[in-house]
């Protein structure tokens, strides 16, 4: 086996080149970027058309019914909320534990978090019967003392997702301020104006850096539990209900693990896409991808365990109604989707155990998309079988979602892609200052190894930035 250099990044890269690469590529991505953007926009338009149609004629066009009050909308909602989790994990958790390799990829992962949340947030609106009254969920003071219902998991959702969206956007933004200052220093035209405002006067002074460090760490510490609470709350939509197959104690951790899993798979996809679109091969290296794969694999195994534990709990719990739902997945009308989900999301991750595969971008692209399809199916398999097989046997009903539902689901992918791609175009998707720190520390470590502890004792920082011509 050939030796593989385990370095996350080439530490000899010039700092100016980092700036140059990131900034230049922001402005001139590959042609594929524009194709992707156009495709996303078209998909978005398809979804928008479907939504306008549904808005006009009512939710009946989605073929929802008395048994199936929820359908793909809620499944996709969970999917997107889930997808938003990995960004936080990568950025906050790995930041807390000082995992260096996160530094080149956390920015777009965080962007993915925010955009995925924005995508998720439109689903409750699409799915509401009377979306124009959505603001009633907000507990604003009413002179008739009518509030939203604080017991409803949907209100918890509203609280949790608002909090999460606010926090993850601020986290993304705060982490981006030093980079925005760099952009400000280099941009012209409208970009200049934008970055001047957004960089809020960042100059990189020691006071700013010091506060920045504390702030960033503090926020990371809040974001991690927040992310976990958010998907727990989303799982409460089901776990708090009475329905067989939903009323499951293990749902919160199961949802969180599933979220991280699908999020990591999502990051893998975007990793490869970003790397290609913006020519960032030097930063998003294969070594980082391999680490990402290992993490995904680990989380996939946690999730696999939890899903099997859930089946076991239902099976040995021997609650008739619960078992019917389970059997409907095993043998019933949902079997094709269920087993597809089991294959894609449970069996397929084992391929990540092979190093050769972990380093093959094309294969990983396919795999990560398949994982996400599996995880999307998994969400559908949470929502629909229970609705199909509820307590009253009279109302058992199989739903095949109408074309409108499918269009909106695909439209949401377009919406995500559109916002994300535009976002990438405006904001640096690789954190320049963090890459510099990464290079700096990596070099320092290397020097430290080479020279023993000669410099460490001095208490000074050793090393210097790789400067052009220095």
């Amino acid at each position, binding site marked *: 086996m050939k030796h593989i250099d385990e370095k996350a990044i080439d530490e000899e890269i010039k700092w100016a080149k980092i700036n140059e690469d990131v900034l230049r590529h922001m402005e001139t991505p590959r042609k594929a970027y524009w194709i992707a953007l156009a495709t996303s926009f078209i998909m978005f338009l398809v979804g928008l058309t479907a939504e306008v149609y549904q808005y006009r004629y009512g939710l009946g066009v989605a073929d929802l019914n008395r048994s199936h009050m929820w359908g793909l909308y809620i499944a996709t909602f969970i999917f997107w909320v889930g997808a938003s989790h990995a960004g936080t994990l990568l950025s906050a958790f790995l930041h807390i534990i000082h995992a260096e390799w996160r530094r080149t990829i956390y920015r777009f992962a965080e962007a993915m978090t925010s955009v995925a949340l924005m995508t998720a947030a439109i689903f409750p609106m699409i799915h509401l019967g009377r979306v124009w009254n959505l603001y009633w969920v907000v507990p604003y003071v009413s002179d008739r003392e009518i509030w939203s219902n604080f017991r409803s998991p949907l209100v918890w959702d509203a609280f949790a997702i608002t909090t999460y969206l606010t926090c993850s956007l601020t986290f993304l933004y705060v982490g981006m301020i030093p980079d925005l200052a760099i952009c400000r220093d280099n941009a012209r035209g409208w970009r200049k104006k934008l970055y001047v405002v957004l960089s809020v006067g960042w100059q990189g002074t020691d006071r700013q850096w010091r506060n920045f460090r504390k702030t960033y760490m503090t926020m990371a510490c809040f974001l991690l539990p927040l992310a976990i609470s958010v998907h727990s709350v989303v799982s409460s939509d089901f776990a708090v209900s009475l329905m067989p197959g939903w009323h499951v104690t293990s749902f919160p951790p199961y949802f969180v693990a599933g979220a991280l899993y699908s999020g990591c798979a999502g990051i893998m996809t975007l990793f490869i896409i970003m790397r290609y679109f913006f020519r960032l091969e030097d930063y998003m290296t294969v070594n980082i991808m391999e680490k990402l794969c290992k993490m995904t694999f680990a989380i996939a195994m946690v999730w696999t365990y939890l899903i099997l534990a859930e089946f076991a709990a239902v099976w040995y719990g021997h609650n008739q109604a619960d078992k*019917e739902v389970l059997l409907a997945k095993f043998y019933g009308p949902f079997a094709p989707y269920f087993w597809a989900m089991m294959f894609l999301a449970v069996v397929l991750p084992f391929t990540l155990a092979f190093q050769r595969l972990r380093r093959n971008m094309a294969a990983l692209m396919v795999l990560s998309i398949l994982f996400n399809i599996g995880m999307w199916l998994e969400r559908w398999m949470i929502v629909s079988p229970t609705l199909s097989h509820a307590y*009253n*046997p*009279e*109302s*058992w*009903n199989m739903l095949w979602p109408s074309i409108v539902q499918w269009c909106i689901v695909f439209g949401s992918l377009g919406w995500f892609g559109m916002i994300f791609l535009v976002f990438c175009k405006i904001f640096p998707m690789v954190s320049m200052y963090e890459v510099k720190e990464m290079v700096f520390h990596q070099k320092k470590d290397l020097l430290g190894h080479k020279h023993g502890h000669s410099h460490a004792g001095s208490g000074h920082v050793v090393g210097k930035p790789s400067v052009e011509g220095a």
Partner: protein
Amino acid sequence: MSGNGVNRRDFLKILGWSGVGVAVAGCDRPTTVTLEEGKEEVVAYLQPEEYVIPGVGVWFASTCQQCAAGCGVHGRVREGRVLKMEGNPDSSINYGKLCQMGQAGLQGHYNPDRIKKPLLRKGGSLTEVTWEEALGALEQKVGAASGLAGDRFAWFTGTVSGHQSVLLSAHLAALGSQHHFVHEVINNAVGRAVNLDMLGEAMPRYRLDEAKVILSFGSDFLGAGISPVYFSTAYAKFRTGSPRGVLIQVEPKMTLTGGNADLWVPIRPGTEGAFALGIANQLLKQGVDAAGVPENIRALIASHDAEKVASITGSSADRLARIATLLKERSPSLVLAGASVEGHAHGYSAAAAVMMLNMLLGNVGKTIVAGGSSPFPQMEAKMGGTRDLIAFADAADKKNLDVVFFYGANPVYTAPSHLGLTEKLKNIPFKVAFSNFPDETALSADLVLPVLSPYEDWGTHMGIYQPEQKVVSIQQPLMEPLYPNKGFGDLLLAFLKMRKVKEYESFTDYYSYLKNAFTALPATVKGGALTNDEFWGKTLQKGLLEVPTVVGTLKPRLVEINLPEYKEDAQRPFHLVPSGRLGLWDGRHANLPWLQEAPDQISKIVWTSWAEIHPATAARLGVEQGDFLRITSDQGALEAQVYIHKGIHIDAIAVPMGQGHEEYGRYAKGRGVNPLKIISPGADARTGELALYGTRVTAAAAGRREFLVKLSSNETQLGRKMVATVTADVFNRAEPKTIT
């Protein structure tokens, strides 16, 4: 909620405001306002009568016209619109209850497909004309000047009763015609004939509440029977008695009544008579007194031993014996025969065999008692069957008719295709349909007169089945007419005036005729010293008038029973069961969306037709639920989706009546199939009624499948305690008796 102090006059005053605009528009229709008050009066809505509070509903009594049972109803009127029908608690027919058809009558009244103006056939197609033109055309054809007389003229109606029936008979008499064809598909004509022959009375009273056991041969008294609401109330008493009554239903296809049976016995169609004789055989074996049974019948009974009957009927020998034991031990019992017994060429004999069981068991006089007679036999319901349909088709075929008036019947839809009625109708030069809807008959008529709906019109009715003292129920308008049309009674009066001016000229309209008829009643009927107006007001308020009834006794008598051998038909192995539905009935309610969407009680299917078959049959035919089954008789074929359940005999295929309309408005048109169309020729040997259940068919998968639209998806409770069941023993022992 019921009776109130409102008098009729004031009620009509408030209604006047909405009617005036139409009256001014130049139609000479006799608005009740004009005639009663002598002038038209507009009452400002803002200054209503003292008792009228905008927003408060007022209830008025009337009579339900949805089937011939004649239930008393209360209609809720608010702001001049009738909104809801409920039963009239004073009615001895329905005791304040109402079935789904009665509830849905409103949708006939407000139906978007109602004909708004008379239609006259001009140059081959029906065109809207004014009432003047329509009545002018009518006068030309049937007026005194037309010279039409005698049997060249006919009325073809559904069940009619009350003063409409009186006037209708008078009209026929004025023309000198004998032809009054009365046609009902869901009828008990054969049963009436049997009753008349064996009991001396066509419509005795059945005392379900007195019976401890009911053995019903296909009698769907809870569903498509003679008086569904009354029998349902009686059934409740029967089921809550002490001990609780036992219901055994013997029939080829599970009816609503069968669905409620303690024991549902499937039987090969057409062998019910043999089953009855088999039970008689067992009863005699068990020592039931058979002194009055003549020798020939005794021999017939003796020839029906259990094994033979079991092999004929497809039931088991010991089941026969047990049912006989049960009947004998739990007395009194009641044995009923229904449509599936009567609808065969030997229907009369089979029904007579069933009735004979009542005699053997001594039920006559206990659970079957005399119905009595009223002093107004001319007002009692003229009940029809299908014999008149055959006779009518025959008369039309022989070109014996010049003019026919259709009212309350849709023979073009209900007539089996072997009668060829559509073709034969062309032999009648002038056909007049009194119809509110563009149904098949109306659209083949030359003149369509849209009469007022039952909620806009006056009338009196006597229900076909009178469970207690006989009553004449009043039908009064619950609101002003939606369209400026004419009442049926008014039209009848107008026709009479064409021929007999003198006798009827004193009646300005049907309302005055009715009021006159009632106020002229003797004091014994009026019940107390009341002024005419007081009595009339009281009657209208109550909605019915109880008339003195003379109750005699029944005189049981046995009749000849001729049951043919049951024969298999290798070519057509299945029996077609054209089942009636409480809901769409014989198809007359197919235009009411509530009833289209109310699931069939047994199959829970909505909006379409279906073919019920047994799982074993389905396996034999290789079809599954939702598959289209092609059912072919010697008269044609139809295709319907399969519904599989165990409530049907393996040799039977049941297709419900009610759908398959070629016309009849947006809710009915082009929906499902009409099983009556493929009925084979054949009629009951004695009464001449069509043998509706005697059709043999073949069936084969039609090779296509659609989603079967029905209410429930699961047919079982999957072990959940949705409907829990206890044994009657527990019920009899533990049921608290103190609740009133």
